[in-house]
């Protein structure tokens, strides 16, 4: 299955971080399955029209984070041992970034800890109805 990644080069977020975030998100969502092969560095660079070294840098960090593994000559694959762990930690990374952004925003517009806690609790009860 072809990997669907998009980047916004005009964003202030470095492109390699966008690639890392999207691969993690794809793993967390199961779009990329365990053992699945990622595009080669050159192929992804051409697909997205971004610098190959930028892609290579993203792959290196994904490997260090235990999300993918690269075997020389064969390519890069979503790590197969401990898929559950990888998926869970990838999901955590994605969610953590979203929480961070939301809470930073809440703080910047003047909300205090108590307000933020209330909002988070409300959010949880809205989305986890069956578990409460």
């Amino acid at each position, binding site marked *: 299955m072809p990997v669907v990644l998009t980047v916004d*080069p*005009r*964003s*202030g*977020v*470095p*492109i*390699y*971080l966008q690639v890392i975030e999207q691969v993690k998100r794809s793993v967390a969502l199961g779009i990329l399955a365990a053992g699945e092969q990622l595009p080669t*560095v*050159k192929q992804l*660079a*051409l697909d997205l*029209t*971004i*610098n*190959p*070294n*930028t892609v290579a*840098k993203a792959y290196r960090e994904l490997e260090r984070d235990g999300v993918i593994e690269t075997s020389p000559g064969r390519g890069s694959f979503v790590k197969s041992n401990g898929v559950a762990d990888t998926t869970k930690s990838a999901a955590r990374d994605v969610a953590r970034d979203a929480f961070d952004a939301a809470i*930073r*925003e809440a703080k*910047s*517009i*003047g909300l205090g800890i108590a307000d933020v806690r209330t909002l988070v609790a409300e959010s949880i009860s809205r989305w986890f109805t069956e578990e409460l």
Partner: protein
Amino acid sequence: MSTLTISHLRKTYGPYTAVNDLSFEVPEGCVFGLLGPNGAGKTTTFKCMLDLAQASSGSVLFNGHPLAPAAFEKIAYVPERSVLYDWMTVGEHVEMQRRAFASFDVKAVAELLAQFGIDQRKKARALSKGMRTATMVALAIARRADLLILDEPTSGLDPINQRHVLNLIINESARGATVIFSSHQIGQVERAAERIAVLDRGNLALEGSVDDLKAGRKIVEAIFPSESFSLDGIASDARIARLDRSGRIVRLLVTADANEFVTRLEALGGAGVRIVDLNLEDIFLYAVSPHDATADVVEGAAK
């Protein structure tokens, strides 16, 4: 091996200094973007790299050695202005290159020209500005050079062919070639280049990896309850590249950890403190002197 090292390069034309004390390195396999307003010295820098203009002082080393005639076999150059002969057909230009360079790939150039929709039987004079650029790019790519120096390689091309040229640059880099190119389209440089240098009136205003420049430069903005707020201890911080104060709002361009400045502005009574990411165009505009920057962006957008 194809590392380019520029040290203290200076080029004067009479009383006019086109390039002043320019130093940077283009590592092997890197795509390097050279940015700058018109007249900033980009083309002069390219010419000095190739010995087409004699540097007034300083040096350009290719793999650690001054440029020797043998090195030209491994360097492909696309100048800013067309160097095609009006009376010759595209096919005759191909033949000329084939005879001149042993590594010239005739099959590749035929494919590239076809992709650009260029008929090899056409005389150069019958080509549009964009098609001349595309022809020169195709001839340069087919050289299978170790180092490509491309002065405005997307100039005059439609968006589809601009994207095609960017992918050719990426492909060259992926096979290990070093590419240095200039463009007024900052978005293109942001995509294809790993490192950039910004020239402003002949001086190096900024140099580094695009990712590092983005990660290391943030705007921290805060709103204060009244206009008479104090910025004690912040205003003099060397890590603030620029401070804009207007009414109750202050915007800092910081080159350090932005979170630290969020905390400090909040401690001084700032509210609504937020961190704003900068894209390459913002970074470029902050790096060059305001008058030139405005003129350049307007012209770049019109192209």
